[in-house]
């Protein structure tokens, strides 16, 4: 069961990365010239359509991470501490806390993608979207680095 959950956690992370990155790139390229090239078409999607998917994937991934966390605490973190890999423990702590903080961002993020916001709302929406994207990337990269050092068995 554990390997299945770990793989699922990783796959949901990949999907979340894809969704948040696509939304962010599209948001930042909003004023770019339209065309038929890959980048133009990549950036010309309906950005708002990603919102519900991002929220759902984020919550599912945090739940999966929360279910896996006790095994990490017992089977991975203790060996990290014995190997004096404090930086690895620290990276994971940052990953979990960033992910936890991201949960508090989601309600406002979802609201700002509903309808057409004011200029202030647009800037806030862009900043929060980039924040969620940063958290998704951080969690994914740190998770893989730590799994390469010592994965759950």
């Amino acid at each position: 069961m554990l390997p299945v959950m770990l793989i699922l956690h990783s796959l949901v992370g990949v999907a979340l990365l894809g969704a948040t990155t696509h939304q962010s790139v599209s948001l930042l390229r909003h004023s770019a010239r339209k065309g038929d090239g890959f980048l133009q078409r990549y950036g010309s999607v309906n950005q708002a359509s990603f919102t519900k998917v991002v929220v759902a994937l984020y919550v599912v991934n945090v739940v999966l991470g929360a279910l896996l966390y006790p095994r990490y605490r017992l089977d991975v973190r203790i060996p990290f501490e014995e190997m004096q890999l404090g930086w690895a423990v620290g990276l994971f702590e940052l990953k979990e806390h960033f992910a936890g903080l991201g949960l508090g961002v989601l309600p406002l993020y979802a609201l700002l993608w509903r309808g057409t916001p004011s200029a202030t709302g647009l800037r806030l929406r862009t900043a929060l979207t980039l924040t969620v994207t940063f958290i998704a990337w951080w969690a994914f990269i740190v998770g893989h680095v730590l799994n390469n050092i010592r994965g759950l068995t």
Partner: protein
Amino acid sequence: VIRAGFARGVFMAVYCVAYVAALRLDLPLFRYYPLTRSFSWPQQHLANQGPAMVWYGLMATAAICAAAVASIIDDRLLDRVRMYLWLFPCLAMVAVAYLLRPLFA
């Protein structure tokens, strides 16, 4: 953009502040001991139960504080600082990194 009702801007701001405060002051709503699958209250450190986990409790503390404040305070109070609301999660992440710096020493 930010309408009346459940104040999501307030929720985010209070959630971030409460999360960092709970981490700094060691005030998770509860602790979980994965070795024995048992729980304890925040100030109660169970002996011989193995390592304690506070992450779930920190999120619970932050969510309860944020939900309580967001249900009684309107987002209009944040009108003047609305464009800076994004700083709350970003500064909270910086604060968490600062609190965890001994792990990287």
